[in-house]
């Protein structure tokens, strides 16, 4: 069963094959959570989205048509759309005090701590991006999908994907550079 294609596994899932469910999760759950994490900015929301995605797989497995679409692309599309829906719903209820703070506290001497802080700052900068730019970066840069797959998932042209990626990366550079300057200034004043 390890060598079975995704289509074959989905067919087995529809018949209630537990091993096929486990194998499908082994192949795709980690990547689904990773995509949702880039989009949502926290692990709890990411796991909720991934759960919803896989519950849809369980529910619709008997209606899956092999060869009509690539399973992993379909999975990315469902996950991306669920994230975008959640983000749109959250937009009206975001508390300004809960927004991620790009300027962090003074970093500790430990290099691990610095790496954690850099990660937190970059993740916060990603969350500042418009949702579709963030989705393009998540799908193309982090998930490693081709520009045609990313275009298919976001239902735009390849040119539009390039534009979303360029604007997203430019915005990230600005956000991270501004933060770096502010961090340096805060260090100078505290010294």
């Amino acid at each position: 069963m390890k060598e079975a294609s995704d289509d074959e596994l989905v067919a087995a899932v529809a018949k209630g094959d537990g091993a096929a469910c486990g194998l499908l999760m082994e192949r795709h759950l980690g990547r689904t959570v990773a995509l949702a994490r880039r989009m949502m900015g926290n692990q709890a929301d990411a796991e909720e989205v991934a759960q919803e995605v896989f519950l849809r797989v369980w529910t619709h497995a008997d209606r899956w048509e092999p060869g009509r679409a690539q399973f992993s692309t379909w999975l990315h599309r469902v996950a991306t759309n669920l994230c975008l829906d959640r983000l749109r719903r959250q937009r009206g209820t975001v508390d300004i005090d809960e927004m991620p703070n790009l300027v962090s506290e003074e970093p500790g001497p430990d290099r691990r701590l610095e790496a954690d802080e850099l990660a937190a700052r970059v993740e916060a900068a990603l969350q500042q991006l418009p949702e579709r730019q963030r989705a393009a970066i998540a799908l193309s840069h982090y998930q490693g999908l081709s520009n045609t797959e990313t275009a298919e998932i976001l239902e735009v042209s390849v040119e539009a994907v390039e534009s979303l990626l360029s604007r997203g990366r430019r915005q990230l550079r600005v956000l991270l550079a501004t933060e770096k300057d502010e961090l340096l200034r805060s260090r100078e004043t505290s010294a």
Partner: protein
Amino acid sequence: MANEITLERFSAIVEAYGASPARWPEAERGAAEAFAASSAEARSLLAAAGALDAALAAVPVEAPSAALAARLMAARPRAIAGAPAARPRSAFRELIDTIWPYGSPALPTGALAASIMLGIAVGSVSEISVLNEGLTAAEETEADDRLISLALADVAWPEEWMQ
């Protein structure tokens, strides 16, 4: 040459996809790599994009929790015990299903015809009288009255029970 690219296009590729050739569009990858090897400006663009790539790589990926995997396994579809495996349908069966998607009308029509014939056959060979068998004319009238009062009584019962 068709596979040569301009500095402008190279810049657009690096701006969008970053410094790693693995992320560049496949159709332009070879030309872009050749351009990068021959242009100082291209290398400068790559260095700037590489710094952002490194920052993006710092964001960690957490593995899914065991609780999530357990919840999903608990919610997975289950096989129905003893359910027969679906048999492949013949071409004839496919044709029949296309013509009568809800089944052939021959079956209910046949069942109706059979029940009518049975009713006629039973009626013709026996004289069935459940109520009036062996009764005189007077008794017959009294039995009819009882039946009528019995039929009307159900209207009165609820009122009696409510008293």
